């Protein structure tokens, strides 16, 4: 494995690992706050137990997310020193604010986890909400930094020099809003479906049904509302990408030739050599409409992008199709759930609905990983879009593949351990929480 590929793999692994834990850390506090609120309002002890059970899970995920996040702040320099040397002062603003948000989150988490029966109950509840809000804020800030890589702003690039730096402008770059919105909703969809799915499995197994039903209801509501909102934010993102990164959009859609009334390509296998897509469903004019709001507008194809500036088409295309497909499945489940809530209350008792949720457990996170792949691979070969190539940013230190193997071993074992611990948490619900 060559150094550059090893560095990219290690970065992808680290981010792909961290993103799961940070989503959970961002979203679970809100689920807990709802359950905690019910406990304080209704005095139904099941809500107190649910809040405690969830908070144990959150502590595990938060700690793992915090350490993997710490690692990332170093890895940026360890793997991409040339990038950080120039980009650090420009896109560092969201990171310095994120430091604060993350710090507040850690402090609030200390209050929340260890504060049972020690503080005014509503103060204790409030610290839980602070965990969620500051977590969400951290997420938005980090995504704003990533958005800068897609949409560099706040500096002038003259003769290889970065001048007239404005870190505030860099933070509020053109992509920050659409990306942060899409990511935040994605976190709710992914965590919501994962949590609802796990509890659905337990209900189906007939274990601690009362407990798991309460849990399922809270998670499912967040998940389904977010799943309905997500396509709308996806549309905002798509239009934005079409404007700013036509190469990425072209790769997502395997859109090889610039054309008017461009067709939307669904599925299919791109054949990069012959510049065509096999076995795909094509809807004429739809890509023009989705990208520019008009069925006839011209959509830039890969033919207008120099060969050495094109992202890998197949990976970007597949990742995008997977993300959209999973999003559509979750949207359909959400719609069924809303019908059940409003019109067909008896569906809520049916096994098939729970089975659908159980099946969807991993879907949200798979979609998050796929979406992350689209935004990162779709930006290649650039690390700062149009300014610096990823290959020029990599560390001169040889032997990064060994570092990659080491990280892979560590993260794989950690993932196994976390899943194992989660399994044990759920197994112990019977003894610890369902009284």
């Amino acid at each position, binding site marked *: 494995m060559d150094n550059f590929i090893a560095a990219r793999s290690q970065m992808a692994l680290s981010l792909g690992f961290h993103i799961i834990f940070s989503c959970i850390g961002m979203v679970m506090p809100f689920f807990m706050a709802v359950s905690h609120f019910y406990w304080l309002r209704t005095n139904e002890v099941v809500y107190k137990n649910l809040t405690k059970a969830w908070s144990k899970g959150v502590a595990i995920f938060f700690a793992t997310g915090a350490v993997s996040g710490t690692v990332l702040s170093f890895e940026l320099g360890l793997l991409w020193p040339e990038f950080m040397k120039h980009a650090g002062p420009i896109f560092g603003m969201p990171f310095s*604010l994120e430091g604060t948000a993350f*710090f507040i989150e850690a402090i609030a988490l200390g209050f929340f986890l260890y504060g049972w029966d020690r503080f005014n109950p509503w103060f204790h509840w409030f610290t839980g909400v602070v965990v969620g809000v500051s977590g969400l804020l951290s997420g938005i800030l980090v995504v704003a930094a990533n958005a800068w890589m897609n949409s560099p702003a706040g500096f002038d690039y003259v003769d290889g020099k970065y001048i007239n730096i404005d870190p505030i402008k860099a933070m509020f770059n053109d992509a920050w809003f659409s990306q942060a919105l899409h990511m935040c909703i994605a976190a709710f969809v992914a965590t919501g479906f994962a949590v609802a799915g796990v509890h659905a499995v337990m209900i189906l197994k007939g274990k601690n049904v009362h407990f798991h039903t309460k849990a399922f209801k809270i998670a499912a509501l967040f998940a389904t509302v977010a799943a309905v909102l997500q396509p709308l934010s996806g549309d905002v993102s798509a239009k934005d990408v079409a404007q700013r990164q036509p190469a990425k959009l072209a790769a997502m859609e395997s859109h090889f030739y610039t054309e008017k009334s461009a067709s939307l390509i669904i599925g299919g296998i791109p054949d990069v050599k012959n510049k065509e897509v096999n076995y795909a469903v094509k809807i004429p004019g739809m890509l023009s409409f989705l990208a520019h709001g008009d069925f006839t507008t011209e959509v830039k194809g890969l033919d207008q992008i120099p060969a050495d500036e094109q992202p890998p088409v197949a990976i970007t295309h597949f990742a995008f199709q997977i993300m959209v497909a999973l999003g559509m499945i979750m949207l359909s489940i959400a719609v069924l759930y809303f019908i059940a809530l409003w019109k067909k209350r008896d569906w809520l008792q049916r096994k098939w609905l729970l089975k659908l949720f159980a099946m969807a457990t991993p879907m949200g996170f798979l979609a998050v990983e796929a979406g992350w792949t689209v935004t990162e691979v779709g930006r290649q070969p650039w690390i700062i879009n149009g300014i610096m190539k990823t290959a020029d940013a990599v560390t001169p230190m040889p032997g990064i593949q060994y570092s990659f193997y080491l990280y892979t071993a560590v993260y794989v074992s950690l993932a196994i351990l976390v899943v194992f611990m989660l399994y*044990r948490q759920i197994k112990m619900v019977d003894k610890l929480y369902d009284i």
Partner: protein
Amino acid sequence: MLYVVIAFLWTAILLYLLLGGADYGAGIIELFTSENNKAQTRKTLYRAIGPVWEANHMWLIITIVILFVGFPDIYSRMSINLHIPLTIMLLGIIARGTAFTFRHYDAVVDDMQHLYNKIFAYSSFVTPFFLGIIAGSAVSGKIDPSATDFLSAYIFSWLDWFSVAVGLFTVTICGFLAAIYLIGETDNEKEKKMFVSKALRLNIAAVVCGGLVFIAATLEGIPLLEWVFGNTIGLAAIIAATLSLIFLWYLLYKGKTGMIRLLAGFQVTMILFTTTFRHFPNIVILKNGGYLSLLEHRGHDKTIEALGWALLLGSIFILPALFYLIYSFQRKRIDLH
């Protein structure tokens, strides 16, 4: 504003050394506690650091963010030549943080606990050891930006007697801080005695390792003696630290557990002050005699300005909340488990 940022950087490093250091130290003490007492020690330790440990480690993140935003040349130079010790330190951080959390949140208590305990205790030793190595190699003058062969660019940039001695010194300081801190955290007389004897041993170890640092510096041709004793302010700080050490043992003998924490903190502050004062504003010394300076190798003015405001704004939120967190759990010390 540049000096505000530098002050924050120094304070973040100091707080990480004090709070994070005591946190690591707690694990180091666990590592060197006899099997019979381990369970009790673990309990005290968890009660002492459980609610604050996440916050203690945030200072490292603040440090690194200040470096990469405000002083990118320094950050990227260290990232390149100190890649290996940084990576080992990071693996230590991963292992330690997760093991600490897992052992308290695993719903089933069984043999897995042994694994968590082992990982926690060993990584508590390894991580500050490598932090010390990194700090040592920043000033040892072994980082060579023009080196092309692997060994001199990526190994001998940090692997020398001086940096290793600084690593050991850091470990003993962390252990010492933790022992002093834990004395006030237990009401059990037997355990208190144990922490006092640990504090004494670690104190002696720190003095010995401090001596080793000087010897190693002489071996490596680093003018450490001149740096520390060659100027009045450094000398005064060292004398103050030594005097306060005597005072500390006197107070400990009198049973004043609160005051000794402040004194231990004061000593470590003086050590960091002396070692950084002489070099200011240089933070990395290179092999060719050049250096990376906080004044010369800084980011653009607008960046420093924005970073300074972000830090000031952040501390308005962080400091009161952090203070209240520590205060609350000091006052409401009830058995957590």
